């Protein structure tokens, strides 16, 4: 699991997609909707390559159907892994509510296989390897499922281009993506990706029965040094339960000196 607003990840097919787009440009082959969908997703994904490592604090606001709010604060450390056949490494450290202060989750993301995950329980000083097949379960009682946070590596989905349409002030490509990994709670997702900065602006999630279950809106994008875009506000609304969860990100810092040493099991013991 990775709580990351970059709703996209670099992957090995970037080169292939570049080749496809070159061929399309030179008119050698007709492009299918699947190829075009992949190309749009890959372009968005590619815009984030080379960020290295980052840290961010975030506030999570959980709202029930009656509008009653509860709040959590956490920190996220991310390490980009150069090897594209595996995903990034991440560390989520809880700060509040106070009773879970210091609880942490270490993830080594994979592309199609379940991630490697360890939970750190500070009361016992215990590091416990946990199952990561619970993709569709709620993350800490929120409207975000574990899989919504998982680094959305490009190759975790099959794509199909749907249409282009206006999204707020921007023009967006609308792409359907179908999870290729096991245990997903979704039959498909529809993503709106703008044509200016290539960032994801909205995602509709459809449950296994094919009904619309949730909508995610991503806003307050800012470009950091190096041209890396980050959203600072994600709002997930569950249409079936009427509950919602907002993620409000603080400033990101990049090149913070994080290394592989900070993403090993033993590193969990020195969080606090």
């Amino acid at each position, binding site marked *: 699991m990775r709580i990351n607003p970059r709703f996209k990840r670099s992957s090995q097919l970037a080169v292939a997609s570049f080749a496809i787009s070159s061929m399309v440009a030179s008119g050698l082959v007709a492009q299918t909707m699947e190829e075009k969908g992949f190309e749009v997703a890959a372009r968005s994904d590619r815009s984030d390559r080379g960020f290295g490592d980052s840290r961010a604090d975030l506030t999570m606001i*959980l709202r*029930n159907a009656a509008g009653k709010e*509860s*709040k959590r604060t956490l920190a996220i450390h991310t390490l980009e892994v150069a090897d594209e056949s595996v995903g990034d490494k991440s560390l989520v450290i809880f700060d*509040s*509510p*106070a*009773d*879970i*202060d*210091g609880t942490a989750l270490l993830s080594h993301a994979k592309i199609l296989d*379940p991630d*490697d995950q360890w939970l750190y329980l500070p009361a*016992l*000083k*215990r*590091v*416990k*390897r*946990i*199952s990561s*097949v*619970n993709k*569709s*379960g*709620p993350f*800490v*009682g929120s409207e975000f499922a574990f899989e919504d946070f998982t680094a959305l590596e490009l190759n975790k989905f099959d794509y199909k281009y749907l249409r282009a349409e206006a999204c707020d002030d921007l023009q967006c490509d609308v792409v359907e993506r179908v999870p290729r990994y096991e245990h997903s709670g979704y039959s498909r997702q529809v993503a709106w990706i703008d044509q200016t900065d290539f960032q994801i602006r909205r995602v509709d999630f459809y449950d296994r029965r094919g009904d619309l279950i949730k909508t995610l809106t991503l806003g307050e994008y800012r470009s950091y040094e190096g041209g890396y875009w980050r959203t600072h506000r994600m709002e997930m609304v569950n249409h079936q339960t009427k509950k919602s969860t907002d993620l409000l990100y603080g400033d990101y810092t990049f090149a913070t000196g994080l290394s592989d*040493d900070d993403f*090993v*099991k*033993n*590193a969990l013991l*020195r969080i*606090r």
Partner: protein
Amino acid sequence: MISSRTRSSGSDRQATGTPRPAHGPWLAQGQRLIVSSVLGWALGALGLGALGLGADAARAGELDWSGSIELELRSFLSDPAFPDQLRGGQGSVVLAPELGFKTEDRRHQFRLVPYLRLDGRDDERSHFDLRQAYWRYVGDGWEILAGLERVFWGVAESRHLVDIINQTDSVEDVDEEDKLGQPMIALSTSRSWGTLALYVMPVFRERTFSGRDGRLRTPLVVDTDDAQYESSAEDSRVDLALRWSHFLGDWDVGVSYFYGTGREPRLVPAATGDRLLPFYDVIQQIGVDVQYTRGAWLWKLEALAREGQGRTFGAAVAGFEYTLYQVKAAADLGLLAEYLWDDRDDFAPPTAFEDDLFLGARLALNDTQDTTVLAGGVVDLDERSWAVLIEAERRLTDHFTIEVESRLFLDVSEEDLLAAFAADDFAVVRLAYHF
């Protein structure tokens, strides 16, 4: 049975029954802990100084302050089995602040976690400890820690078999999960082949036991003021431990070695016949813990071989944890089963887990209050006695949590180690404020 090795460590000890100086034992112990932690921090300060940091680093560092205050009400459901034991309710208060400091580069870390329980009914349960009080320096791929720390090893749920660094704070609860801070110097390195850690432990911590007034005790009171040691250095023997741990794909593996004063005491009748004395042997132990994580299954094994307490013996816990995700709405149901085996003879500290089966279920509602319910029981396959646990916890507000727990000892045969607890079924409520 230990006559030749038993030495009295103090001829002026009071016989049980005469009043002890109020809170004397834990103050003396507290002083030793403070000395240990101050030494750890002094090393830290030296480290800072040697690296030319000091004041600048301190100014730019990160201070972290948290902790909890807990009210506990424990209620025993039956009349006590032994004279002088309290009946009915037992209230106590726990104060557990946590203070941490890291230098800006996060290389130096200081941590202080004092722990104080004041119990209304049992003086021996009122105690002070330093759960953590250390300085740690994090190098590139290695780290060193000096001071008091809690170290956990293992994978099983019903019994923490290979976990040996820290002494059990057994007046807290009977689950052996509460531990005293262990003075140590620990050096570890994490490499591509795993993590290797060396622990040098210059001070031994004695196990805590309920006092005369307390429930959940042996028929004769354990006199913690008169502990006996095999080592002539008594509680100042330098103990050593080594552990390698790693993960390869779906496997997490740890191998550990311990050489020092064993944390489990034998309980030996005093010559006066009116109390038990804890006797601590020097042991060597090799432990292994393995977890295989596949899909919704966690397969677990902990095993050890120990020399120095009676005949060399083996012990193991093996089992699984299987989770049914979203069994009802967002709720997850975990099913646990573990088999416990222990081969020790009568010259070793007694265990309740010689041939036992643990069955349990954990329900996590995954709501915003993190409501969880755990129910489980250990059945002795020879004696058929049951030790049952039911536990539920929930967050009430951003700062308050509540926990309800009950332990029942059912059909306990007189042969069983748990026989002493047979009348001590209890229910407990804990209300905690976290800051």
